[in-house]
């Protein structure tokens, strides 16, 4: 028996084009392609099946990600959201996020998805600097991004934008301007990702051939710190290493990933996590990618919790310590190194712990 799923992820692996840094499970497919129809119909069937099996009864957050969900167009989104509404309880207390890109998000789409139960929009803006957008190979410009946010805000109170930092050719000033523009546009949530060069992407090839400078860790650290400074000044709280929100607008679906909550992923390459008290498995495309025992689970829970500002509760530490005897010793050593601190009954990452997260997570991972 497994614990009930609490979070549902639906993957739509289609984009108008592939960005130069992207290694996600997605492909550039024209919006009118019958391939997308087939895929969405199949996804609807999977939702119906899981509903019938009773797996969707405990779902409290839904996330339509991609790819670019907005790229598939309103008729297919209607079908998908309508199916979802029939298959599970999609009341306003259920957080339902959809990802969109500026080039395919329209006013009418905003109105329709809102009516069908989506209550959070996450827009892939990345930058408000046309030069930087060009380097990234994005399909939109700064003007389009602003327009998309304005459209979204006509219906949605909960709008998030993604921004990237540390891009070669992106000045600190350009990045800071993008953060400020996002604030001015009135979004309630901002995610800030430093660029990573992934294997087999055009950027990877460009770095190898010397056309593109490798992202500089120092610059990325500087940008991440600048984001924190600017956003916290105007009331956005950093609740996770890369996530900032106005109070009450934290993404509950993502928090589920970081707090060991079981999730179901449907669609190509979507990961599911199923577990009970003794065992945790992650499954992707029918293959088990992780199979953890209770000790490994506890270590993973601590590692993921350390991404979040609220950190690890003493309670979790105690539970972990019973399985992993070196837990307290390790946390003390990490505190000694200035990577975390013990405050009000919780172990929390410090700024340094966030920036050098792999040190922090690595030490916790190594416990099991």
């Amino acid at each position, binding site marked *: 028996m497994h614990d009930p799923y609490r979070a549902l992820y639906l993957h739509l692996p289609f984009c108008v084009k592939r960005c130069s840094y992207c290694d996600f499970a997605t492909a550039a497919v024209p919006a009118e392609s019958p391939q997308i129809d087939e895929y969405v119909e199949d996804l609807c069937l999977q939702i119906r099946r899981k509903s019938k099996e009773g797996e969707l009864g405990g779902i409290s957050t839904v996330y339509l990600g991609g790819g670019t969900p907005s790229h598939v167009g309103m008729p297919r989104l209607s079908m998908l959201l309508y199916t979802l509404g029939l298959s599970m309880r999609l009341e306003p207390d259920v957080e339902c996020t959809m990802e969109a890109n500026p080039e395919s998000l329209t006013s009418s789409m905003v109105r329709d998805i809102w009516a069908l139960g989506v209550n959070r929009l996450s827009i892939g803006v990345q930058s408000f600097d046309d030069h930087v957008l060009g380097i990234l190979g994005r399909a939109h410009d700064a003007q389009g991004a602003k327009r998309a946010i304005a459209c979204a805000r006509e219906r949605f109170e909960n709008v998030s934008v993604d921004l990237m930092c540390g891009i070669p050719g992106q000045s600190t000033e350009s990045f800071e301007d993008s953060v400020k523009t996002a604030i001015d546009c009135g979004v309630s949530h901002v995610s*800030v990702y430093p660029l990573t060069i992934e294997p087999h992407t055009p950027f990877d090839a460009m770095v190898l051939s010397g056309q593109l400078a490798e992202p500089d860790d120092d610059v990325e650290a500087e940008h991440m710190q600048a984001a924190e400074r600017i956003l916290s000044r105007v009331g956005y709280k950093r609740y996770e*290493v890369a996530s900032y929100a106005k109070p009450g607008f934290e993404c509950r679906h993502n928090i589920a*990933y970081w707090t060991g909550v079981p999730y179901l992923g449907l669609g190509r390459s979507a990961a599911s996590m199923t577990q009970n008290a003794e065992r945790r498995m992650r499954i992707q495309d029918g293959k088990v990618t992780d199979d953890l025992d209770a000790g490994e689970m506890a270590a993973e829970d601590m590692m993921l919790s350390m*991404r979040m500002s609220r950190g690890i509760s003493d309670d979790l530490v105690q539970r972990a310590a019973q399985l992993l005897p070196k837990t307290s010793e390790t946390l003390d050593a990490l505190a000694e190194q200035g990577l975390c601190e013990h405050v009000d009954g919780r172990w929390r990452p410090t700024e340094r712990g966030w920036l*050098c*997260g*792999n040190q922090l*997570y690595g030490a916790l991972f*190594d416990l099991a």
Partner: protein
Amino acid sequence: MTDPSHIRNFSIIAHIDHGKSTLSDRVLEMTGTVAHRDMQAQLLDSMDIERERGITIKSQAVRVNYTADDGETYQFNLIDTPGHVDFTYEVSRSLAACEGAVLVVDATQGVEAQTVANAMMAMNANLEIIPLINKIDLPSAEPERVKAEIEDGLAIPADDAVLASGKTGVGVHDLLEAVVYNIPAPQGDADAPLRALIFDSYFDPYRGVVALVRVVDGSMRKGQKLKLMASGKIILAEEVGARHPAEEPLPQLGVGEVGYLVTGLKDLSQVKVGDTLTLAEGGVDEPLPGYREAKPMVYTGLFPIDSDQYEPLKEALEKLSLNDPALIWEPEKSHALGFGFRVGFLGLLHMEVVKERLEREFNLDLLATAPSVEYHVFRQGGEMISLHSPQEMPDPGEIERIEEPYLKAKILIPPDYVGAVMDLTVARRGTFVTMNYLSQHTVEMLWEIPLSELIMDYFDKLKSNTKGYASLDYDFDGYKPSNLVKLDILLSGKPIDALSFIVHRDKAYDRGRVLTEKLKEIIPRQMFEVPIQAAIGGRVLARETVKAKRKDVLAKCYGGDISRKRKLLEKQKQGKKRMKAIGNVEVPQEAFMAILKVDD
């Protein structure tokens, strides 16, 4: 027992990569010793590492029967010799067991340094040399040019050189016939007391030490009491026989025959290569000439990365020593690296092979410090210390003088590269001795060069400065005084004993500067700043700093990313296993070898 007139003992010698092993395999196949389907490429090289590197480390002897065109059947003993300058002495002993040698020269490469060195050794051993030009199937083969090189450069008549291809098998029949007609039959006195040469030995876990032998006079029978003349040890011949390469026990080995002897001894060091076997009672007094103790040339510290592996490392060294008497080791303690061993090797290749075997066959993670040579340090008052490790260097005030080992190096190059070799070798403190034109295309340069310089990637540099044309051979030339100092490397202000090394005073500043720069690249950024300094005594010559790490995080970590993240963290963990924590600084293995890669 075969009549000596129908025995032919020979060796195949060649420069590395000229195709010796492939050709040996072809001989075995053509004489029907090994069926083609049983052939594993390069059958005689039995260790994985030998096969991978295409080199022979241990000698082998295989007996084959060959029915010649004259209708007679001959016993061939093919003795395969190690193919590297580290093992020169072993080669000389294997050659002493032969009457002839097949000198293999690559039809495209021509005569190279080891061709010359091996031919010289074969001539010194009074062997009949059959030149063989190999790889004639290649489109770029130039047999006529190579023949001229053999005649001009080696003074060996090459008109009748065998033209062959180990790959296609062409010419192998000609070779077998040439062996019958050109290589003399062994001479020896069948009625005299036994004299037999040990040309190699190995440890068999079930039978103890097995020696490969060549009977010179008399005969060796199962059950005889025999004496090892160098060690004085008396043994019982538990079994004698021939290898095809499968072993065939025989009642006895007669004059001129080559085979194996099971001694039952447990300690390989008692059965020394080059030693003479005679009868325990009524034996000869005079051993065969040419015996020498194997002596290590290069020393390195070997430390387990995980201190729990100290005992397994010790056991592994004990096991390897069973079959490698040239491997010498003693415990060593480093402040930086903990407990390990100081290990002496015949040369750099020997060192690499042993380290690789320890890691691969015994599953150990090892850290090797930069190789060093044996220095002779004379204290005030005359006492001499043999220094194997820079750590043991006495205080400069106590030292009267230091001597270091020199080599006589022979370099073969086309004339165009004389200048390049001059520049490089002088920069490596080499002293030019002389230069000869072996032919219009080949110059032989002779040098005296400190061994310590040669082990600092001299050979790689020589190759790259001569577009790969140079070939090198060397011999030990004795100890000479040098103005040497110990250079210390400090990390975070603390001297790291395992990184210190001995260097000529004139080079100390440059080496120190370049090494600190290299270490700055090699040592990854840590959670704190790491200053790197090079110093002699208390005087700092150079300083670099590894900046503290500011950011090390992957921001995205959603559903499917978590598995990926776990993989990355697992990789990070494995990566750390390849590093040694010195104090709180994580130092990768390459750091300890960086000194070898210091460009001039």
